[in-house]
């Protein structure tokens, strides 16, 4: 009984080696471990091996050949090898350190270094941990192929020409041109539902001058399409320095004698602003405009009126 690993290894070597498509009969004569009898069992074993290779990123190509079987199989070198990267030793070492220093879930960058034949070391304490999401590799592959993507988002099918994948303030975003809205949009990758599908390579065409860096604001209260409102917020002395570091000095309207600061925040998403404000507890207060302050007060009044011990859950 030939080990399946041995059969798979042989199969890869045989399909790579001679660079001409081989019939299943030829393959079975060169690769030990397939059923001796021609027929369905051998065919199924081969199909299963092909799937295993494809799952591992090794593409077996079928092509027409002369002879009774008519179909031959080959692993094309361009599907298996990368063009030489010509990495200098210090560049290899830097990639290795980067992979060891970043936690991204499985499969890791370490697997990638292995495939490139580069040194990979394990066990370093990571410098950065980024959330790993199942949609990210497919989105990245679509970006590289310049392919239009579609996915379900908040119960709606969206078609987007992707421009950038961006990790910002704790979340992964896709930035792109929304084909149905005809405008730039950003999407939280963790809120995409189900699989991302990609159209043909080259199908995505971004409008001239599309600037992905401008599409995603630095602060959460600018993520949204509401009307622009300048909201006046006072932050007390305890948190003034920390909040100024976060929002930037340009938002500073004035400093008070008690050490508090008054900020002018340009807001298009009031819900996001409210969420940020409440994280600061009673260290922050909306001063105006009136309708925004009233909105915060009515939110709080509604909450304060909740029965003390909710019954009948």
């Amino acid at each position, binding site marked *: 009984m030939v080990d*399946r*690993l*041995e059969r798979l290894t*042989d199969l890869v*070597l045989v399909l790579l080696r001679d660079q001409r498509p081989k019939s299943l009969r030829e393959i079975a004569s060169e690769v030990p471990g397939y059923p001796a009898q021609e027929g369905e069992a051998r065919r199924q074993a081969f199909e299963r091996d092909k799937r295993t*290779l494809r*799952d*591992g*990123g090794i593409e077996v190509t079928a092509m027409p050949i002369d002879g009774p079987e008519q179909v031959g199989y080959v692993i094309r070198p361009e599907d298996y*090898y*990368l*063009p*030489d990267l010509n990495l200098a030793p210090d*560049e*290899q070492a*830097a*990639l290795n*350190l980067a992979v060891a*220093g*970043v936690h*991204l879930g499985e499969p890791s*960058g370490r*697997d*990638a*270094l292995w*495939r*490139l*034949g*580069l040194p*990979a070391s394990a066990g370093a304490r990571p*410098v*950065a*941990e*980024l959330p790993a999401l199942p949609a990210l590799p497919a989105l*990245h*592959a679509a*970006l*590289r192929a310049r392919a239009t993507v579609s996915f379900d988002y908040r119960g709606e099918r969206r078609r987007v020409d992707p421009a*950038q*994948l*961006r*990790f*910002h*303030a704790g*979340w992964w975003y896709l930035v792109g041109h929304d084909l149905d809205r005809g405008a730039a949009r950003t999407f939280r990758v963790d809120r995409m539902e189900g699989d991302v599908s990609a159209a043909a390579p080259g199908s995505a065409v971004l409008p001239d001058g599309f600037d*992905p860096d401008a599409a995603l604001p630095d602060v959460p209260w600018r993520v949204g399409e509401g009307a622009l409102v300048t909201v006046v917020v006072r932050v007390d002395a*305890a948190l003034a*320095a*920390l909040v100024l*570091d*976060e929002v930037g000095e340009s938002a500073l309207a004035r400093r008070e004698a008690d050490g508090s600061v*008054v900020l002018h925040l340009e807001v298009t998403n009031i819900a996001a602003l409210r*969420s940020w404000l409440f*994280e600061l*507890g009673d260290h922050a207060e909306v001063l105006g405009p009136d309708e925004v302050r009233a909105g915060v007060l009515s939110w*709080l009044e*509604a909450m*304060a009126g*909740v029965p*003390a011990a909710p019954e009948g859950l």
Partner: protein
Amino acid sequence: MAVRADAGSRLLRLLAVLTWLARQGRAPVSELSERFGLEPDELIADLELAACCGLPPYSPDQLMEIIVDDQEVIADLGAELGRSRRLTAAEGFALAASARAILAVPGADPDGALGRALAKLEAVLGGRGMLRVDLREPAHLAVIRDACEAGRQLELHYYSASSDRESTRIVDPVSVRSIEGHWYLDGYCHNAQGMRRFRVDRVSTARPTGEPACHRGEDAPPDDARDSAQQTEAFVPGPEATVVHLAVDDDAVWIVEPLLTSPPEPRADGRTGVTLAVASTVWFGRLLLRLGPHAEVLDPPELADTGRQAARQLLDHYRSAPFR
């Protein structure tokens, strides 16, 4: 018989070992075993199997020659097998994102070796400039990282969101890292006499005391310690954290998503059931304010009123503060 990895992953691992060997020619078994995360006997078994593969090849340059003994592997595999292989989408993403993340660490040199390596990778893989990682730079990050690298003790003014208080702490820094968008300092806190985790953007001043750090992480928290919510929320809580169950409207689940200790569960009433660990009533009250009418505390009953109390307290503040 021990459970072994399936044939597909073993194949990929073996091909990785062969690529490496094709380049190196020879390597100690111990080095290969460590580098590729394989037990030595597993590695030797797979290599002996590979030595039988590809035979009989039909010309000498196609011969896979592998000699394995207990100490060392010597291989003559030809240049072809040593070439870089194509990456899967997941691997290509992981590699590019790792490099981008390290280049986003404040102080990284975009024109250094890593920047050049990434440019070469992106030239071959495509996607130049299409992946961006932002890691913010809080005001005191540089001072804290320098002190950590040099092993110097720090005095911090630190705002704790769980206690809603600022305190002065003497800390021996052990490590500084960015976790899901925020920078954290892990260090030995002399005031608490134990390892604590601090969010760097809540440090209002940081100053070296002039003393060397005497604790260097010998009792560092395990890496999975961050799995519970408050570990990424300032101080590492003690075991006294309370497990809280909430029912949350679907469109507000994003607020609690980063804090969950287990996957959210759909409920019969159409809302989502979530579980979090709560170590501070102040912090929990503010979380409930953010959720507003979109959440209800199911358990424990003594926390059911926390949101209402937080709302009343903040309302009192609004009504008493001078309106300007």
